[in-house]
């Protein structure tokens, strides 16, 4: 693992370290972290919101002494602030759920490959079952079952995503288990723990790790979709997705900014995650640094 990261870092020095997607993603993260400091308004605080200024167009001056740079939404919340706070929720939800899904999926997949027999059958039946349905459907069923709330959303996303990691990790681990160096380790009568952690995991983990950025992108989109369908985060604490959703009814009456700007922010976020993710995956692909 250490060698893997080191070699990735070494590669980084040769490549363009400051590609556009990376800068964009870094900006997003900075903005999310600093949101309470830089947002003109706290959209969660009813005292700071002026209902009579609802649906103000971009550039309108507000009574609270704000300039509504991107306008206000149907409840009078400043769109810039909604985006900044929504960004936090979207990122927290997607990163938490992807990390947890990766951990669970990786453990399940590697265990299935190493122990085989009924462990493998049990885990992979479940994985196959789940992967034979579209992710959005699984997330939908999960959230309908679990009920509303941010914690439930995270749980639903973990349920929807762990199987992808499990299948990848199992596939890789299975091909590693069949390699002679694993046989050699067994012939030494190494303790099972050492075989798994010293030999199997370090060699199986890379492809699953490269999945994480891409899956975070998926998680952002999934959360946004669920929120859009009214099954996600509560309306008073909108994520980027629910901010777009809130603007949908206004779109048809011409108040396009309520959904356009949060949507653009969302698109940029997912695109930058995906591009950086692809980049990471290419760099960590063993076929690219075999020599």
């Amino acid at each position, binding site marked *: 693992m250490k060698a893997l990261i080191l070699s990735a870092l070494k590669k980084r020095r040769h490549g363009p370290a400051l590609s556009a997607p990376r800068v964009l993603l870094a900006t997003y993260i900075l903005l999310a972290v600093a949101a309470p400091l830089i947002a003109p308004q706290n959209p969660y605080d009813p005292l700071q919101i002026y209902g009579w200024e609802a649906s103000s167009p971009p550039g309108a001056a507000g009574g609270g002494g704000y300039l509504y740079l991107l306008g206000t939404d149907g409840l009078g919340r400043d769109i810039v602030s909604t985006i900044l706070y929504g960004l936090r929720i979207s990122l927290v939800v997607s990163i938490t759920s992807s990390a947890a899904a990766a951990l669970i999926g990786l453990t399940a997949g590697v265990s299935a490959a190493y122990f085989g027999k009924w462990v493998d059958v049990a885990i992979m*039946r479940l994985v*196959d*079952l789940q992967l*034979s*349905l*579209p992710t*959005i*459907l699984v997330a*939908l*069923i999960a959230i*309908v*079952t679990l*009920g509303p709330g941010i914690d439930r959303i995270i749980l639903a996303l973990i349920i929807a995503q762990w199987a992808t990691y499990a299948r990848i990790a199992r596939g890789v681990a299975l091909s590693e288990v069949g390699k002679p160096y694993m046989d050699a380790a067994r012939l030494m009568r190494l303790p099972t723990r050492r075989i798994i952690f010293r030999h199997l995991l370090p060699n199986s983990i890379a492809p699953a790790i490269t999945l994480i950025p891409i899956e975070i*992108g998926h998680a952002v*989109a999934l959360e*946004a*979709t669920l929120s*859009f*369908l*009214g*099954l996600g985060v509560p309306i008073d604490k909108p994520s980027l*997705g629910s901010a*777009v*959703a809130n603007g*949908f009814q206004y*779109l*048809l009456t*011409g108040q*396009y900014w309520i*959904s*356009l700007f949060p*949507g653009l922010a*969302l*698109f940029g976020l*997912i*695109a930058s*995650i*995906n*591009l950086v993710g*692809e980049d990471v995956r290419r760099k960590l692909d063993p076929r690219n640094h075999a020599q």
Partner: protein
Amino acid sequence: MGMISAVLGRLSQAFLLLVAMSVIGFIGIHSVGNPVFNVVNIETATPEDIRGATIALGLDQPIWHQYVVFVDNVVRGNFGTSYIYHLPAFELLMSKLPATLELASIAMLIAAPLGTALGLVAGRRIGTLFDRTLLQASVSALSIPSFWLAMMLILVGALLTGWFPSGGRGTTAHLLGQDWSFLTANGLWHLVLPAMALAIPNIALIARLSRSGTIEVESLDFTRFCRAKGLSSRRILFRHTLPNISVPIVTIIGLQFGGMLAFAVVVESIFSWPGVGKLLIDSIQLLDRPVVMATLTFVAVAFVLLNALVDLFYAVLDPRVRLSS
């Protein structure tokens, strides 16, 4: 033999899936809320009214018993009666199906050939401007959340320009006992935006797959051998590369078609397209349990059937599966 075992394997998996689906879905829907309050007025109902409604809906029985009754009914094609529409749930579902089917089919008819062709061209010209543009465009297309894409299509295609209608099915015509939009000019007009919303991410996905498939197949020994034996590059492309990349492409088309039935949830709600997806979302929000179960079961069955079709297609396509006796 290979075909039989493929079909049997798929069927056993389908059966397991359906059992699991029905249990999860049944219990899940059950825990969401009390649907009795949808049939009686929560303000004025007496306890007797509530008890009467509970018994009428069969909700007084233990949960396993309700499940058995449910499965028994499902096997006979009876998902119960919608709490809201007071119609048999399955009938309701079937009445919404043509709208979804025509939308998904048209989107796939656009996406599959276009995506495959773009990917083939890019895959044969790796690193060229066209290839790089396609890669970037496909990442972007896959990054657009489907609901926002749909909304922006409405904004640009309907609100700003007024070229296309922003929702609804338009005029429909009758065929095979169902109403279809694609048979009338006005209906087709209404199909354009929602079909684009479904097709765009799929074009990107299929193009990426077809590109990587092309690169892989063209690097194989037999394409080198085909060149060595004197075949023209056009013949290699159409007779060798294309059949060989079609296996993964057909897979993704099958899966994505099922995915469209599911993703129609989003697109249909935005375009007020009265299909299965809109029905599902409305029913979830109204706690219309029989309809939710009927819809989820239907989508799962459809998905499994599509998977089975894809497997069969493998067998048709690949002699190694077809003739492995």
